[in-house]
Each structure stands twice: as C-alpha cells, then as structure tokens.
C-alpha cells in the first residue's frame, strides 16, 4: 500500500528549476533514503511535501487517514494529517524546557477551548494531565526523562537531535520526514541514531523518509534509496542497486566507490 504519491512535481524559483518533473511512490512501512549532492533539491522536496512551498506544477497525494491533495497542504495542517518532520538545522524551542518542547508536539491533540484554560475547567486538568503523562512516557523512551526540566538550548547536540525527533513523534505521525538527522554526529552517535531510527519504525509503525549525507547510515537502514541531482530523480532502488548504478556513481558516489 502506498502512503505518498508524487506526480510530475516541479518547483521553480525564478529561473532556477529546483525540482524537475519528479514521479515517485512511497510504500507504507519503508525507510526511504533521499541522497544527492548539495543543492540537488532534497530539502526543497521536503518543503514541498510539508506545504512550506507550493509546487509550480504537479501533484502530491497522501494516502494516510484520508486522501490529502496538494491544495490541502498547509504547514500547520500537515501534523493533523499524520506527517511530522525535523529540520536540517535543529529547530527546537530553545528557551522552553525539554518537557514543554514535547508538549508542543501534542498541540494538535488538545481540544479544550480558551475559556476552559481561563476558568480551569475539568477538561483543562484532564487534557493537561494526560499530555503530561504521555510526554513523560515518550521522554523515558528517548532517555531524556532526567533532563525534562532543562532548557532545550542547554542540551548536548546529540540530545537536541533526539529531542527534535521525539517532538515530531509526539504528534503521532504516520509518515516521518527527517532532514539530515546525522549531520554533525560522530560515528558512534551515528550508530546510535541508526538503532534509534530502526527502533522508531518498529515501535511507532511508521514510514520514514530521510535526507542524509552519511552513506553508512543510508546504506544500512534504508529499504529504498532515491537519488536527486540538479532537481531530477536520477535513480531509485535498493541500496545495493544504487551503489552499482552508473548514473549515481557519475553524479555523486564516484569517489566513494573508487575508494572501496
């Protein structure tokens, strides 16, 4: 079953064709790697998927709880549809506590109104208590429980990455978009991240698309790899196929393969 279908998607910024005529289907439960040189259009692709940009032409269709089409995509609505993302340059709420960061992740699950907040009606206490409990549970799974009252900006780099992923998961997504989760991590941290992502897929029953430059990570955990170059999708296949693909080697992996 597919969760995401992209049909002849293009995005131009003035004369620059950032994304050119991309067609791709994403199957449920897979981990998809998105690779390509800098400026290939990977993050633009994410921004199109999450409604931050609207496409110049083409269609994006999600098959989650309901069918979502391009025109329904608004940045603040994607979480509601079951899509959550992280950012290339970590975007935590730096002056909020770790716990409050997670609670923002629950935002779309709260229902009580402003009057209820002003008057502290039972619905307020019930919803807040519930969210608090769920947030602690989530933090425990990510080994961040003892840091719940610290400000997000005071966490070490690896924990900030983890917190951002935890915040995205708080929204209970069906599709998780990770933009360079291993950026700035050392090999040990990358290995931990690999285990974390694998565990997330199992534990949360998710489809994951991740942009990554770290080939050891991509080749080890991805079921399928998409290769972008100059806004084109130049190759698509299993990690083994990608590693042996002429066009990919030419566009991107050339040196790495020679080293092997």
């Amino acid at each position, binding site marked *: 079953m597919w969760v995401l279908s992209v049909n002849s998607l293009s995005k131009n910024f003035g004369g620059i064709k950032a994304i050119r005529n991309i067609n791709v289907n994403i199957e449920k439960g897979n981990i998809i790697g998105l690779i390509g040189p800098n400026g290939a259009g990977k993050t633009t692709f994410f921004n199109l998927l999450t409604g931050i940009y609207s496409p110049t032409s083409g269609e994006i269709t999600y098959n989650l709880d309901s069918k979502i089409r391009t025109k329904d995509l608004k940045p603040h609505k994607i979480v509601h549809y079951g899509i959550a993302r992280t*950012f290339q340059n970590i*975007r935590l*709420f730096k002056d909020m506590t770790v716990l409050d960061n997670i609670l923002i992740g629950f*935002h779309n699950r709260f229902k*009580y109104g*402003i009057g209820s907040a002003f008057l502290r009606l039972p619905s307020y*206490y019930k919803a807040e208590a519930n969210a*608090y409990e769920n947030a602690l549970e989530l933090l425990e799974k990510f080994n961040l429980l003892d840091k719940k009252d610290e400000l997000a900006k005071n966490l070490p780099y690896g924990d900030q990455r983890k917190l951002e992923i935890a915040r995205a998961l708080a*929204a209970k997504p069906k599709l998780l978009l990770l933009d360079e989760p291993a950026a700035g991590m050392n090999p040990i941290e990358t290995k931990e991240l690999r285990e974390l992502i694998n565990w997330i897929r199992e534990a949360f029953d998710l489809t994951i698309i991740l942009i990554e430059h770290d080939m050891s990570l991509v080749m080890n955990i991805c079921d399928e790899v998409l290769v972008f170059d100059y806004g084109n999708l130049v190759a698509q296949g299993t990690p083994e196929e990608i590693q042996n693909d002429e066009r990919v080697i030419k566009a991107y992996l050339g040196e790495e393969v020679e080293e092997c």
Partner: protein
Amino acid sequence: MMNKVNKKILLGVILFAFYILVQVLINTGIIDSYYELNLVIIGINIILAVSLNLITGFTGQFSLGHAAFMSMGAYTSAILTAKFNQPFILALLLSGVVASVAGILIGIPTLRLKGDYLAIATLGFGEIVRVIAINTDYIGGAIGFNDIPRYTNWTWIFASVLVTILLIKRFLNSYHGRACIAIREDEIAAESMGVNTTYYKVLAFAIGAFFAGTAGSLYANYFYFIKPDSFGFMKSIDILVIVVFGGIGSILGSVIGAISLSIISLFLQGIPELRMVIYSVILFVIMVYRHKGILGKREFKIFKSRKKNRKKVEFNVGAISK
C-alpha cells in the same frame, strides 16, 4: 498536595490582607489622594505591561500600538458612563471587547509582518486612532472628553490587576499559551508541529488588547478627563519600557517593572529639571548590565514551585480518571 493548597491559601491571605490594609489606610487618610493616584497609575501600568508582555514578550510580536488599544477602551468607557449612564462594570468589559475587536481587525493584516515591519505598522495604527480621536467632535476632539464620572477606586484597581495577572498566567499555562511561546521561539518549527501561527498571533493580540482596553477604562473613570494626546506614541513606548525593564517574557517582571519605574519617577518629581535625565540613565544602566531586564524570563520561586506541585496533582487526577 497539602503544601500546594497551603501556599495558595497563604498567597490569597497575603493579597487579601494587603488589599484590606491599603483600603484602611485610604479610609483613615494616611494614604492621601496623591498617593492613591499613584497607586492607581501603578495598577494601570501593571495591567498594560502584563498585557503587552503577552504580545511582545511571550508571543514575540513587537507591537508599538498598545496605547491605541488603551485609548479605545478609555473612550468607550467614557461614552458609556458619561453619555449613556451605564454601570461601570459594563463599561469596563465593553471597553475590553471594543479594544479586542480592534486588535483582531488590525492584527489579521499586520501580523503577517515580522519584527521591525510589524512595529512600524502598529505604530501607524496608533497614530490613526489618535488622529481619528482628534477629529471626532462627538468625543471632544483635540480638546478632550470632559466630565467622566469617577468610578475607579482602589478596589477596582486591585481586582482588575489580580484578574489580569491570573487570566494571562492561566492562558500561558495552557496549550494555547505554549503555542504562543513556541511562535516566539521558532515560527517555522511551531507551524510544522501544527500550531496555526496566524490564529495564535491574532489571539494573543486580541487578549492583550482586551486588557489594555480595560486599563483605558480604569484610567478614564479615574481622571474625569481624557484627551487623544495622552495615548500617543510616547505612551506605547512607556509601556514597552516597563516590559523590557522588568524582563521580556516574565509576568512578575512586568509587575515589578511597573512598580519600580513608577516609584522612581515619583521620587524624581522633586527635581523636575533632571527627572528625565536620571530616568534615562537608570534605564541605560539596567540595559547595559542586565540586558534581559530585571528578572529576565524568570518568575518568582513561589510561582515555580506551585507550578511543579500542580503538575503532580494533575498527574494524579489523570491517573484516577483513567
């Protein structure tokens, strides 16, 4: 749990005792009308600063039009009490509502702007309100609005300040408030977590404007007389100074800022030639040595520990209800 209840009761008793004490001192004449006037000004400034802090400090929207909301509240209240003889409580609430509606109407187009651009737009809004007031003969025009009945007293001020702080604190401790703070921290990330940023910016604007409107109402019904120039650009700046001085993003900071700045300018009234100079120097020194304001983002311990305790209780409540 006893601890939390005790602390709440203790705080309530202290506040009530403070209220009674001041009321008795006013009745016996120890606090004369001059000091009472200053108490009223401090109270109004607290309401203005706390409500602006919601917009600027917590939601991160830099507004220079806060005095305009106050002005709308003041004129609404003046018209209702002086021309239509309505009860003060109605005038007070409607002042807030009128300012709030204005906040929504001005917020929807301008809150798309960020930082400096928003500041200029709200500044323009403030000037529009002032110029309209000057050119409307019904409300006295440039001469001002006279013969407004005096209803505001220590009880009204105390209750209004308390309600303002309580409601804004409760708002901030809800998911709505967290969404506002998230917008200040990172708008794009907030949006990607499902926060409708336009909605929450306008909401913060509307709530802030509501309380500014009530502050205007309290002002109009204390001083008998209002004129458009009392609510100009400089008044907005004065409120902003209190917020920045006390600490952007701290309710208690705004309270302390309003009280201390009022007291400072009170003492400086003895030396009118140097008043503004010394006032400016004090601001300058505070900003150089404590650029996050007196309190920064901190709240007092009593608020903090209460918050933690409350969360524990909520946790239990949730467990039982399951």
